[in-house]
């Protein structure tokens, strides 16, 4: 550190670590002569008339303060300069003064008159800084002067000075709390202030001085809500957190009729959406939010708060986002809380400290509102570079989010974590698996098997942790797991971690009936090593001995006595006590006879299985985002979040008399329009906008009632809808497919309404009586996107979109079966719609079949193998399930290239089953698939029975959503489930189209630049004639040949199945085998992959 003389300046006891502490007090600080000299020289400099010398001296002094060194003996010399003209010197003197005034109160008083003068200065900065320093000097004598200064400043012309006054209030309050009443008056006055500058500071003062005076807020509530967006970030946080508490006392719980909401979440959703759209002013909003069926009406002021805070979710400040998130969590109707998830997930990219806090809060929220974060599951995946504390929190969140549908993904992810080098993290993962296993009964066995495998892990900590978790799991169903207990018993020889040893011993003792032969032997071994064991193990040895004595006294009587004797003389009194107690209980004697008769009941009573719970379970009684929540303990000054009132207090208290809110602070003219619009103007603008851009929206509401539009996303702004329609035709297909994903997600939510809409549409179409193909294809379009179906019924503006969809989705008349299939679909609509609905898999169906599905999942690497299959392109059959792995059931699949009846976006896959076992296989069907976004499966009808030696073929359809992602699903038989996956070669994701050469050239001209991929290749000799080239290309990709004028050029065209984007392939073969392959497609990924595949096919 610094040179020796510097130590003398140190205040005793304040020295940092690593700095030797010389036990001297401040008084003796000047013993060293060098020190005298130095301070003398500073004093001299301060006494001169030169500002530059003074400044130099002050800088040195401030540097001393900054290092935590004592400079208090310079006080008189410094304080003289408080009136110095040089502003920098003055500021530094202020710094000094504030730091030492408390210690040298008498001398500090010398400076007061300067500040009093400063308070009257014409310059607002000087007025403000005088008040700042005056209020920061912690000298009780000047309290009256401070009080006066604050009162005066509170009515200053300058908002900056008023802000300073607001800051001064808590300072004075902490110095003298008797001033509270007067200060509240000032706060009341400042709360009425209409500038954004003051708002944050005064609410801060309110929170510190009189948080209980909620009545002061009433009149200012609406103003604060409206100003909020323009207040600086720090003020926003404080105001939002205060308003959360306020709302909890003034409004009714929006979730009070929870059961009703749960029955019909869409309706609630709809109701709130309407509030948002319309809510023009308090009165009107109340009127619109009053559908006859709803007993609960949200107070318009409550809605105002929710509406005005929502934009702040997009603040750059993590603190503001968190504040809004907690507000929504505590105040918003259940259906609306979801909006905060996205914003919180975004914060996970921030600094690790921010992540830490956010994850803690997410962990708490995810217990109560799991659904909210489920779509973001992957954002919580763990990287090996994350700090351990972050890893463990993410693991907590993942565990909370795990449910029956996503558990396979989560477990596979956990499987990766188990091999991590970070052992603390591995231990936490094992705990997490344990929790998943207890919470989700269906995977319990899978998890248990995985954990048992971990027992052979090399790392002892891993083994130990597994043992502890296995113990807990076994307690739930001990009877079936004698094997595992035996396995564990063997481990006692090797495993040294006390907790694990204790767990094993407890298990053996508890379930000694299941391992009658091994148990006594374990006890024998333990008796031998008893003295060397840890206390916790010894206790369990005694336990084991007692239980064995009770069940099998013949073999273990002596051993038990031996153990008890050893324990009797143990150093630990707990063990001695336990031994004495046990002996009295189990060994029949004259006095203890009554008890020992019941000993067996005492020791071997059935014990309830432990419940593995999140440590975040009950944290939500603390206000989220607060320090208390983070620490899970009440921090000093924490304001309890009140419960909702039973009866709403009078809402009229918030009414402000005719003081028009629109007059609030005319800000900089430029910004006024956007940032400071009074409430009603804002709303009506909003309404107008909505109406203008989405005329059909309101139409649909009118025509088909609330259920119809319920499926529209809360955030699906008018523009996103209308744009998707316009852009899909202009060809932004990649993002469009994304839209469709969303829609699909939505459509499953509101199946009923969708179907209803569909039926309506059917009727309509029949009357329109269009050509067969036209009708059926647009029909199918509506299957996959609910929004288009809905809009078609209702509005003209959407007609265009439907037209374009039907254009895109028109399947080429390439194969014979297609027209027939369509015919059927058109005539017999009721027949084909139900399965397509099933494909969207409503949650109820999921849960029934999942039970069996999951058993196929293991924690070993083998489950990864299927996804590694890289299919060879071509029409030939490929293996889906090998005869051996399938226990006699062999499954192969092939891409038939015929349009899939029912949905032209699906690739039809022929599945060929053959039974080579000796027993018939029954009930062959597809288990509920867990598919990546966008991919959907149309299952084949269940095959009732397949006799030995027989084989059969079924057709299933898979919509790969124009990606080569594998579709993973389960093949179930009555007894077994197999985990299989089909990964399509890129060439199968398209269907041929027929076009003329001119059309081809025209389309190709549109798809240049980024959309064009060219590759040069040399054709081998074998591949130089027309027939072979065409055959090879068409085998690789499902494309149709386009007639071509020149002889050496081959052209092929197709459309991708899902989005219907054109794929144009040109092969320009020059003499001597040189050739150039060009693919034009707006789907660049598909284009690139296709080039690769075709080149490979041609050059082989």
């Amino acid at each position, binding site marked *: 550190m610094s040179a020796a003389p510097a130590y003398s300046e140190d205040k005793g006891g304040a020295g940092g670590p690593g700095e030797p502490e010389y036990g001297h007090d401040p008084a003796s600080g000047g013993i060293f002569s060098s020190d005298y000299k130095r301070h003398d020289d500073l004093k001299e400099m301060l006494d001169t008339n030169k500002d530059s010398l003074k400044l130099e001296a002050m800088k040195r002094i401030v540097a001393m303060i900054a290092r935590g060194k004592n400079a208090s003996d310079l006080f008189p010399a410094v304080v003289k300069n408080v009136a110095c003209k040089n502003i920098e010197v003055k500021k530094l003197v202020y710094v000094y003064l504030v730091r030492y005034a408390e210690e040298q109160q008498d001398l500090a008083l010398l400076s007061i008159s300067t500040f009093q003068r400063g308070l009257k200065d014409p310059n607002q900065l000087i007025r403000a800084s005088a008040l700042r320093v005056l209020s920061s000097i912690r000298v009780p004598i000047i309290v009256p002067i401070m009080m006066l200064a604050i009162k005066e400043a509170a009515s200053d012309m300058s908002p900056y000075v008023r802000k*300073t006054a607001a800051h001064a209030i808590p300072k004075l309050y902490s110095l003298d709390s008797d001033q509270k009443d007067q200060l509240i008056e000032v706060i009341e006055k400042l709360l009425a202030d209409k500038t954004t500058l003051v708002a944050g500071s005064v609410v*801060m003062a309110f929170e510190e001085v009189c948080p209980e005076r909620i009545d002061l807020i009433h009149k200012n509530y609406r103003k604060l809500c409206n100003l909020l967006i323009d207040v600086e970030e720090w003020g926003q946080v404080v105001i939002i957190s205060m308003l959360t508490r306020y709302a909890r006392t003034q409004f009714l719980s929006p979730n009070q009729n929870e059961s009703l909401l749960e029955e019909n979440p869409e309706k609630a959703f709809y109701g709130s959406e309407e509030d948002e759209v319309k809510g023009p002013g308090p009165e009107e909003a109340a009127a619109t939010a009053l559908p006859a069926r709803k007993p609960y009406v949200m107070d318009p002021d409550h809605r105002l708060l929710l509406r005005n805070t929502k934009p702040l979710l997009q603040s*750059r400040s993590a603190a503001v986002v968190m504040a809004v998130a907690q507000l929504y969590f505590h105040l918003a109707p259940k259906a609306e809380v979801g909006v905060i998830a996205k914003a919180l997930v975004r914060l996970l990219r921030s600094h690790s*400290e921010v992540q830490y806090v956010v994850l803690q809060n997410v962990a708490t929220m995810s217990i109560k509102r799991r659904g909210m974060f489920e779509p973001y599951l992957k954002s919580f995946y763990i*990287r090996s570079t994350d700090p351990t504390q972050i890893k463990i929190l993410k693991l907590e969140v993942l565990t909370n989010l795990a449910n029956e549908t996503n558990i396979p993904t989560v477990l596979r992810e956990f499987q990766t974590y188990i091999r991590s080098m970070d052992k603390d993290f591995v231990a936490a993962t094992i705990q997490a698996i344990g929790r998943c296993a207890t919470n989700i009964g269906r995977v319990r066995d899978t998890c248990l098997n995985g954990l048992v495998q971990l027992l052979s892990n090399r790392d002892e900590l891993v083994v130990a942790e597994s043992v502890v978790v296995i113990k807990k799991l076994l307690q739930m169903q001990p009877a079936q797991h004698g094997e595992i207990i035996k396995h564990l018993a063997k481990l006692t020889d090797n495993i040294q971690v006390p907790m694990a040893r204790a767990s094993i011993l407890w298990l053996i003792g508890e379930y000694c009936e299941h391992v009658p032969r091994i148990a006594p032997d374990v006890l024998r071994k333990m008796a031998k090593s008893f003295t060397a064991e840890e206390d916790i193990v010894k206790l369990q040895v005694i336990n084991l001995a007692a239980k064995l004595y009770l069940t099998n006294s013949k073999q273990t009587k002596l051993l038990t006595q031996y153990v008890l004797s050893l324990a009797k003389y143990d150093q630990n009194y707990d063990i001695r006590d336990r031994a004495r107690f046990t002996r009295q209980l189990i060994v029949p004697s004259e006095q203890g006879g009554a008890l020992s008769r019941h000993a067996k009941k005492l020791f071997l009573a059935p014990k309830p299985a432990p419940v593995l719970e999140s440590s975040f379970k009950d944290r939500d009684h603390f206000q989220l985002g607060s320090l208390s929540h983070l620490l899970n303990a009440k921090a000093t*000054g924490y304001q309890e979040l009140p419960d909702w009132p039973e009866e709403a207090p009078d809402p009229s208290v918030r009414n402000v008399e005719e003081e028009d809110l629109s007059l609030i602070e005319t800000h900089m003219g430029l910004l006024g329009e956007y940032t400071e619009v009074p409430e009603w103007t804002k709303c009506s603008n909003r309404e107008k906008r909505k109406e203008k851009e989405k005329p059909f929206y309101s139409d649909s509401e009118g025509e088909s009632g609330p259920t119809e539009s319920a499926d529209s996303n809360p955030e699906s702004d008018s523009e996103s809808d209308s744009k998707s329609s316009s852009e899909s035709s202009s060809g932004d297909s*990649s993002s469009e497919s994304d839209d469709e994903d969303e829609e699909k997600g939505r459509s499953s939510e509101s199946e009923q309404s969708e179907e209803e809409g569909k039926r309506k549409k059917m009727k309509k179409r029949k009357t329109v009586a269009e050509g067969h193909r036209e009708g059926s294809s647009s029909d199918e379009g509506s299957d996959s996107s609910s929004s288009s179906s809905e809009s078609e019924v209702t509005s003209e503006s959407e007609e265009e979109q439907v037209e374009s969809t039907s254009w895109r989705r028109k399947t080429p008349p390439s194969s014979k079966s297609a027209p027939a299939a369509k015919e059927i679909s058109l005539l017999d609509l009721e027949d084909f719609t139900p399965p397509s609905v099933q494909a969207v898999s409503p949650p109820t169906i999921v849960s029934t079949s999942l039970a069996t599905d999951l058993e196929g999942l293991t924690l070993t690497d083998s489950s990864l193998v299927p996804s590694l299959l890289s299919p060879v392109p071509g029409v030939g059959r490929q293996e889906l399930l090998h005869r051996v792995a399938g226990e006699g059931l062999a499954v192969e699949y092939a891409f038939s290239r015929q349009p899939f009846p029912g949905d032209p976006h699906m690739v039809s896959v022929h599945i060929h089953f053959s039974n080579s076992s000796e027993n018939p296989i029954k009930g062959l069907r597809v288990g509920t698939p867990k598919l990546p976004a966008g991919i959907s499966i149309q299952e084949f009808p269940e095959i009732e029975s397949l006799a030995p030696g027989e084989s059969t073929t079924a057709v299933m359809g898979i919509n790969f959503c124009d990606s080569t992602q594998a579709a993973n699903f389960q093949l179930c038989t009555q007894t077994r489930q197999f985990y299989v996956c089909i990964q399509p070669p890129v060439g199968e994701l398209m269907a041929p189209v027929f076009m003329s050469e001119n059309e081809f050239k025209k389309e190709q001209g549109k798809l240049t630049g980024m959309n064009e991929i060219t590759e040069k290749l040399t054709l081998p000799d074998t591949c130089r004639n027309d027939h072979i080239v065409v055959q090879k290309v068409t085998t690789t990709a499902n494309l149709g040949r386009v007639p071509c004028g020149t002889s050496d050029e081959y052209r092929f065209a197709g459309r991708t199945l899902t989005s219907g984007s054109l794929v144009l392939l040109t092969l320009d073969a020059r003499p001597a085998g040189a050739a150039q392959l060009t693919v034009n497609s707006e789907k660049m990924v598909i284009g690139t992959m296709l080039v690769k595949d075709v080149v490979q096919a041609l050059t082989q």
Partner: protein
Amino acid sequence: MIHSLFLINCSGDIFLEKHWKSVVSQSVCDYFFEAQEKAADVENVPPVISTPHHYLISIYRDKLFFVSVIQTEVPPLFVIEFLHRVADTFQDYFGECSEAAIKDNVVIVYELLEEMLDNGFPLATESNILKELIKPPTILRSVVNSITGSSNVGDTLPTGQLSNIPWRRAGVKYTNNEAYFDVVEEIDAIIDKSGSTVFAEIQGVIDACIKLSGMPDLSLSFMNPRLLDDVSFHPCIRFKRWESERVLSFIPPDGNFRLISYRVSSQNLVAIPVYVKHCISFKENSACGRFDITIGPKQNMGKTIEGITVTVHMPKVVLNMNLTPTQGSYTFDPVTKKVLTWDVGKITPQKLPSLKGLVNLQSGAPKPEENPSLNIQFKIQQLAISGLKVNRLDMYGEKYKPFKGVKYVTKAGKFQVRT
């Protein structure tokens, strides 16, 4: 709210302290040191520590700990966010936020801290305002000051404090009026063993450097604003305008600032520009293993991928590595962190860069169970991988014609390949 602040360097010296209320003894930091010792790694020091009388909230930035002392309930993110803002301000003023820079400018640091907090509540944190109150140090200014005796401290109230746009100072004048925007996108991804993407998203930011005179009112529009559905804004952006028209309309702060940051998370949209073939194996019962990785381009939109670096945290049992790169150079730190860094450079598709060789393991130790994951860095100039494109920038409110520029860069963010 915030009671005191201590700055602590890596070796545990408290080199600066500042108190906004009454003085809290340095000894309170002992609790922090205790936690630090327990955590072993700097990254694992819990950001919030509870002590008998205080709460310590700390951040770790640029090898420094900013430890703040809190006495009453306050949202922890409030404090963390503020501490980061302090560090950002230091960075802004001194070019770096290091112990040396802070010690050299201790007076300015003190003046800054004094302005940023009043009685523990943030007062002025906007860089534009602070710079008017306290001028950043420059060599020229310190020479001029020493001759003329003028000071670094402004004596009028910064204009921004009073207006509704506190982020911009008034009276800005430039001879060359310029507005530059950098669209920087980082790909965060986890790629699994088999090469398929477990998780991928794009984290993008638009950083702006605006040097425009007067009070310009800008609006920036995009070709495909629909990509931006998860955005956070600088306070200067008019939210309503964005909601209704998808146009970023704002009066910019003067100088450098982050306009928006956004997240594109839909997996279908995230192209992964590189692939890695890897074969890392450790043999059982022999003191060596094989290490072989090859990097190749994939979906790079025709741009060159450059600045590739691969970092691997090898298991502890690895003693040394003997590798041959076909391109670039590699270093391995066998002593402390066991980090292998391979600086690859550019990918040329004709000859894919690879790194092959042997790994020496500590003999007798069991082979590591997990293969280390590969962290990859790269950069693609002139490309925003999400496809985001700026359409146009319009300026209102001022007469002159500014020079406008947009630059696109794609980088790897937290890009991890599991092996």
